[in-house]
């Protein structure tokens, strides 16, 4: 059966998100040519995380999902953050 809560995202929103993603890719390439020392990788990761947020929220529809799915997603991110965090504790204080 089709879902009762069928939510159709307008093409305009998708195209705006796509333009933002292209612009951010341009920014990523541009800043990679400037030597910022260790900040290069942090800047690249910040932009990549923001782009991922756009893809997940709009293209993957997460913004329009119910609380259950959002909660699950949050748990997955938390798990990932915990195992990245703990690995870094280990590497840093070894």
């Amino acid at each position, binding site marked *: *059966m*089709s*879902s009762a809560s*069928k939510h*159709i*995202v*307008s*093409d305009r929103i*998708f*195209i705006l*998100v*796509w333009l933002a*993603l*292209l612009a951010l*890719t341009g920014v*990523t*390439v541009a800043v*990679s*040519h400037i*030597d910022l020392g260790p900040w*290069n*990788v942090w800047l*690249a*990761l910040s*932009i*990549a995380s923001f*782009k*991922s947020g756009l*893809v*997940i929220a*709009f*293209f*993957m*529809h997460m913004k329009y999902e*119910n609380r*259950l*799915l959002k909660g*699950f*997603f949050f748990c*997955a991110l938390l*798990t*990932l953050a915990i*195992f*990245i965090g703990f*690995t*870094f504790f280990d*590497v840093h204080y070894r």
Partner: protein
Amino acid sequence: MSEAAHKDYTGAKLGMWLFLFTELILFGGLFILYAVYLHRYPAEFAAAGSELNEVFGAANTLLLLSSSLAIALATSAIQRGAKGRTLWLVGATIASALIFMVNKYVEWSAKIGHGLYPDGPAMLERPPGEIAFFSLYYITTGLHGLHVLIGGALLVWVWLRVAADAIHAEDYVALENSGLYWHLVDLVWIFIFPLYYLII
């Protein structure tokens, strides 16, 4: 009579997301390896990264971002019942997957031709940090490329199902879930591109 096939839209989508979470953890593990080795060999990573072709990387980024847009538009199109438009958009996504793989093939074969592959002659002469970089490059982009192939195959199946009217405005979760898989492929590449191709 309860002879109609049982459909559970929410369950199907939740199941797909659960699978995608395991994929996030899988690729997350590879990015952790990257981070740990980058921490240990920053200079070698910069030197090795500069050998990757930025233009190929950027072209593949544009392809994946644009095909993600196409499959997102396809989901909206099928919800509105626009079959022709859906077929066109899914077809464009499949074409992007193919072009992506052709780029990857050209890129990999140039490297392999120079003996730069795991355990290859040119690779073994390198310092350990560069060996770590290229090994991770092959594993991560290889696993990602496998996902592009699987995603492309899934979308061919979706295209045929849409053409046969088995996926339509009232039952489109197969297209939506395949689209989610395709977005994941895009998501992983968003991190691969700066970390491998643009590292300085």
